[in-house]
Every structure is written in C-alpha cells, then in structure tokens.
C-alpha cells in the first residue's frame, strides 16, 4: 500500500483495512495523531484527507490511497500558523493529548468559514472531546485566529 502523508510518499506493509490511525502511529511513527476511543467519538485522531477533517481511527488506510493526508506534524499554511499562534498566546492546551485533533478541526473550520460565530464553532468542534475541558479557551483562540487571518 502506498500512502501520501504530509506530502511524502510512504510504502506501508499493512492490510488495507487497518485504520489509518494505526498506520500513522505504529508503522510510520507519526504519533502526533492520537488514539482516544477508536470509534470516532472523541476526535483525538483527526487528520485532513484532501483538506477535509477525518477520524483516522475509523478510516481504512486503503481508502486514502492516492489521496493527500495531512497530520498535525505536516499541518502548515496561514490558517495553521494563525491557529497555532492563537493557541500559544493564551495557552489553550492543558495536558495537550486531544489538542492535535482540536487544531486539525479548528484549521478545517477556518478554511471553510473565515469568521465563525460561537454556534459555528460549537458545531464544528463538538466532535472533539477534551477531558481537561479547555473548551472556553478553544473558542476564544478560534475567534482570535479568525481575526488574525481575517
């Protein structure tokens, strides 16, 4: 199986049914994408497939052959930088474990909607759990990143 991850081509020796999450983490060592539930309920494993957020834990690796996968390690561009800057400016993360997924979802949201309101943020981010409950700061940071990018 040949996968394109963060702009690089990787030959992977795993069955096509293996979830992309475990190919990234165990086979390619890209551990920035996290395992939280395995059933697409927490969003910790969020990656971009052709620019769209996807839960890697339920995405068969074979289904992304020939498509472009971006993980937190390869996330770049003005929206990504605005989000990282906003995250760091108010220290959004606590433990940080869910934050790769939060950032992937936030960047995807800002690519869709330049200046989301609270309701749009809530809808786009509701799939990303945070047990440290950093939600209030995530909302603030997304607004601030949107302003920055405008």
């Amino acid at each position, binding site marked *: 199986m040949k996968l394109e991850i963060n702009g690089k081509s990787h030959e992977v020796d*795993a*069955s096509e049914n*293996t*979830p992309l999450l*475990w190919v990234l*983490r*165990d*086979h390619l*060592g*890209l*551990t*920035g*994408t*996290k*395992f*939280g*539930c*395995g*059933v697409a*309920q*927490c969003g*910790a494993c969020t990656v971009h497939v052709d620019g769209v957020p996807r839960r890697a834990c339920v995405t068969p690796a074979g289904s992304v052959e020939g498509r472009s996968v971006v993980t*937190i*390690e390869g*996330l770049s561009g003005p929206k990504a930088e605005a*989000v*990282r800057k906003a*995250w*760091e400016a*108010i*220290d*959004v*993360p*606590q*433990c*940080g*474990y*869910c*934050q*790769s997924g939060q*950032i992937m979802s936030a960047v995807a949201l800002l690519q869709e909607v330049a200046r989301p309101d*609270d309701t749009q*943020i*809530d*809808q786009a*981010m*509701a*799939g*990303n*759990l*945070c*047990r*440290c*409950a*950093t*939600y*209030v*700061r*995530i*909302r603030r940071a997304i607004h601030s990143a949107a302003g920055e990018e405008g």
Partner: protein
Amino acid sequence: MAPDDSFLKVDRRAFVGGSAALALQLVLRRGGRAIAAEKSLAEVEGGDATPSLWIAIGADGVVRLTCHRSEMGQQVWTAMAQLLAEELEADWSKIEIVQAIGHPRYGDQNTDGSRSVRKNFHRLRIAGAAMRTMLEAAAAKRWRTKPSKCRGEQHFVVHTSGKRIAYGDLIEDAMKLPMPKPSALALKPRERWRYIGKPVPSLTVPKITHGEGTFGQDVRIPGMRYAVIARPPQVFGSPSTVDDAATFRVPGVEKTVRLPNASPPALFAPLGGVAVVARDTWSAIQGRRALRIDWEAGPNGDYDSAKFEAAMMAAVREKGEVRRKRGDVYATLTSSAKRVDAEYYVPHLAHAPMEPPAATARWDGDRVELWGCGQTPQRARQTVAKICGVPEDNVTINITWLGGAFGRKSKPDFFAEAALIAREVGAPVKVVWTREDDLQHGYYHTVSAQRLEGGFDDEGKCVALVHRTAFPPIPSTFDPTQRSPSWGELRLGASDNPFVVPNLQLESHAVDAKIRIGWLRSVANIYHAFAVQSFAAELAHAVGRDPKDYLLELIGPPRTFDPNEEGAEYDNYGSSLSEYPLDTGRLANVTKIAAKMAKWGRDLPQGHGLGIAAHRSFVTYVATAVEVAVDEDGQLTIVGVWSAMDAGTVVNPRHAAAQMEGGTLFGLSNALYGEITAKGGAVQQANFPAWRVMRMNEAPRSMEVHIVESNAPPGGVGEPATPPAAPALANAIFAATGTRYRRLPIFGADRRDRIERIERKGA
C-alpha cells in the same frame, strides 16, 4: 516552614554535555529523614541521562531542572521552572526541563493532592538563590571585589560599575566555592518577582501545537511489540477456558500471554486475563476480539448498581458511627420549630483521561526499564519490582507526559502488566489500554449516599445539622476488611464542615467495595460538597431566604476552627493548621466575590436561575456561581459561570485560571452526565458516548475566573474548582425550575436532556 540547612548539596562531579556544570542537589526530606544517598547520584544507574542533576547550569549557560513531578496539564514544568528562575535570576529562554525517573532520591514524587507547588515553593527558591549567590561570589573573586557589589541579573552577574559576565563563564569558578547556608540566603521581596505571580507562558504548549512531545501511548523503542489484554469483566474474576486459535489466524498476532489471576487486596496489581501480542496495536486489538474465553465471575459477580444504591440509601436513613460532634444535634432537632431533610446520591465516576493508560517495558537480564504515563513513578517502581520478583533497584521508571490523569495514572497496574508481558515475550512490549479497557477496568470514584437533616429555631436560623455519609472507602482497595469511611476521605468536605451551626454531627456508615475504588480529581469532596452545598440552599428555601445570604450566615463570622476539637481526626491535606488554618473569612470572601461577579440579585429572564456554592479543599477556597436557562421544552443551557478562588500565593495566574476553568467544567460534566454502573459485577459503559463527557456545544458560553490577591502561602490549584461546580449547578436549576436534583447525574447517556419543571420561579 523553612527546612533546615542540610538540604542543599553541590555535586562537584557533575557534567552536562561533556563540560563541567554547577549542579545543585536538593536533598528532599520526608518525616525529617534525608532520602538521598550520600554518594554522588551520578553513580546510580538508570535511564535518566543526568540523574544527579536536580538543577545544573552548564558552561553553555543552559539551566537544566529535573522535574520530579509528572506533567499532566497542570503545567508543573512551568511552575517549577518559574520558582527556580525567580531566585536564580535566570533568562527564561535558557531553562530546560528533564523529567525525573522514579526514584526515592527525589523525595515525594506522587503527583496528586494538588501539592507540587505547595511542597516546593520554598525549596526551589532557596536552590535558585543558592546558585545565584555562588555565581555572584565567583564573579566577585574574579573581579577582586566584594560579593555585595555583584548581583545576578538575567543570566549575568553585574557589578555596580556596570561590567558584566555571563553565568556560563563563571561555572568552573563557582563549582569550587562553598555552598551558602540556606538560612543566610535572602529571598526576593514579592514586589521584585519577575516570574512568580506572572502569566508566564507554558513550556509544553509550543510543542503540543506541533504534535511533538511524547505521551505514554506514543513511546516507541526498537523491536517493540504491542499488546492489549482481555481482562476479567469482574474484579477478581478469572478465565476458566481460553481458546486462542482464531486469534492466531489474525495477521500480525505473534503470541498470547496468560497473566496471573488477581486476588484481594487489589492494590496496584494487574487484573489478570489474557494478553494478545502483535506487531501493531490494531492487530492486537483484532486478535483480542477473536479470543474465546469463558470467565469465572469470582466474588464480585453479584455487584448490581441499582440494588447497591437502594441498600446505601436505606443505610443513611439510620443513625451511623459518630465522626464529629458539636452540641446535641438530636435533642435540638426534636425541639426545633421546623425540620428539613434531604438524601443525595452520587454514582461511580471514571477518570477517562483522553489518553488511556499505556506503558512500555524492556528487559535486560533481570533488569527492566519502563516508560509510561505515571503519576506515581516510585509506586510504579515498587509495584513492578514486587510483581516481577526483582529488587527495586533493578527497575527503572521513565515518565512521559500524561495525556490527562485525574488520579487514574497514580495506580500503576499498567506498568506491571507491561513488565510481565515483556518478560514472557522476550522483547520490548507496549501495553495499550483501549477506551473500553479504561472505562471497564478502572479504579473508580466511589459511589455514595448521604442524608442531611437540619433544624431551625423560630427565626429561621439553622440550629442543628446532622450529616450522614456512606460509601465504599478507598482503603478497601488495599485491605478488603476496610469498610468504614476513612478519616482521609471524611476530611474531604465532611469532617471539615465550616458551618457555624451550634449543634452539628457527622455520622458514617460502612459499605463493602465490589470494585476497585480509587481517588479521582478532588476525591470525596465531589459528593460531600454536592450534598452539603445543595442542602445549604435547601435550608434557605425552607425558610424563604436568599440562598447566597443564607450560605454566608451558615459560614458565619470570620474565624478559624479545628475539627480535631470536635472528635474528628483531621490532617488538613498534610499541611499544618497554623500555616493553613480553616478560615471561614476566606470562604465567605470568595462567596461574596463570586456572587458579585454573577451580579447576584439582578432581575433574571424568564426560565433563568442562579445558583452558588462555596467549598474549601486542598487548603484553597473556591466559590462558583452558575446561571442556567431552562426553556419551555425543559432544555438546559448553562448561560454563565463565575468563580472566585483564594489559593494564597499563586505562581502562575494564567495556568491557575486554566485549572479553575477546566476543574469547574470537569465538575459540571460529571454532574450532568457522569455515571458508571455495574451489573453482574461488570461495568456497563464501554466507550464514549455511553460514558458521556461534556462537549464544546455543551460548555458554557461565558466563564469568568477571579483569583484573589493574597500573600498567604500557596494552596492547591488543580482540584479545588471541581467540588463547588455540581452543587452550584443543581442550585441554579432549582432556582430556575423548582426541580431539585439530589441524585447525579442530572442527565443520562440517552441524551434526552430534559429538565422537569415543577414550578416556574421566574425572576
């Protein structure tokens, strides 16, 4: 407060990156005894690259601080670095953190009880001042001047004439100087602090935003295999037959390993079961799915939450063992003008850190090295040594970042699992807990029943209060004969009741544990604060008073008190009562501030309600006000949350506020949705959303935190926000709708999420 002089040492043989370094070792003391060995710690074998270097400055000027506590999002790396950098006058960009291995030489590494800052606030400042003083003395010697004419400033020693020399250039000379006596060191006055009390940015966040940093689940070592374990559904259950034929047909599966059966006491031992070892996590999970196992339920197969709840509620309707007594509560109740009572129930909760537990082990002969997300590295070391039958010195525990913990990761059963399996496999093994494993095989927050009864005099003043509490205690995990609520749990919101009521009694009932019980963020404060602070509002309602005003009356005039004088054994979170008194003035103060922030008493829109609760825990005072709106359909919105915290001296207000926000929402999430139940001894919730956690769209839109300016010694910050959250919410819902929730959670996993309306209270 000041430790004696002998707790500082210079390690003159220390090297950093091949060149000499000025290294300082703090000999931490526990129970008055020095713990560190006399020999240079550089000779102790282990995985830590610089084991002797508690704190070192190299010739490159880089300051390396070995952090002995675990980083789990409370920003302990940043806080410890702030304390050191303050007195060292370090350039913040030159500080690096080295995470300590688990070893007794580091003193108490147990990262729980909200005490990392509390216990290191003085020591780390003294260490920084000692290093700076030695560097100043070295510069003075070089310049042939008096040390008093030299002062450390942002990584340079500066002479009164203006000439300056970098810290790194003074290392060789400073190492040869005697260590100053800590009692001779002058710490900076508060007004000169540049790091402490300032919103210094996190040392971990810039890595987190790039997906860097290693959590327990992220550990990778050459030749490593991956394991998941099929554990018995019931605690102390065991497999009777195991058929792993289908497992071996799963591609990538290499081996199955039968783990020893567990037996009481639970301790931190693995639960037993069958491990499936594979070349990647997914293959191991698939292989586990293919196992055919018949389980023997064992002694806990009769655990049924519904029946258990009924039995506990019945128990608290009877008098219990008296644990604190003031006056004559029953005589007063009998003669009271009016009486009111209420019963409360809080279910089991799961920690559910976003990172499920994980540990990796590698054996070399009879020595084993482990990497994992542990809150208690020394306990992991002891447990692995005991379970594997090797000396503790043969066990090296490396601590990764913790992807949340909340108390779960202070139980190192997963380290022992990794060591046992890796030894069988003959290769390094990472044990991965899935979410199902985490939710079904945890050390749960206990289940609790409480009953409170109050009596009023003719003027509506509460003159008698009896509080009964029943729960399977945490000590049952270590000794199954322990059935009675321990003093260590009662002191968490029950035996330290601050109310000025003249007749007050605390009673407890013994309950058997049928599952592993453990501590979870703020522990027994969760249910005790829920009952006591809900009941305060119920008392107010019974006599037609404003709940905030009545709460302040119950707290009473500013005073300090000692529950030991009324029959309780009270240890004040391990801090002295003279340094950290139980101070009702501070509790009343945060209550007033939170009420003011929420504009208590304002006209509220139809269907809105305000609730308030105040609670002292971990020697910190927090009050929280919550505003809810309940619409015609019973749909609940948390409109706003206002919290005030008096934690004494706060090292980092930005991160303390983050703990307030997160700790409050943790409490609200548990109150709204948190419930773990057992049937036939097995936990019924397997994953999200059956175990439900607050999501972004359910979080309040508005949240404000106020941190009280204080010169008092630092209190805990990670846990105290959680206890008042649930009662503030329940009180708000009552104010909005007349519906009183005495049983948590308020909603269930069914997502119906409707509040019943009993009466409209309106504005």
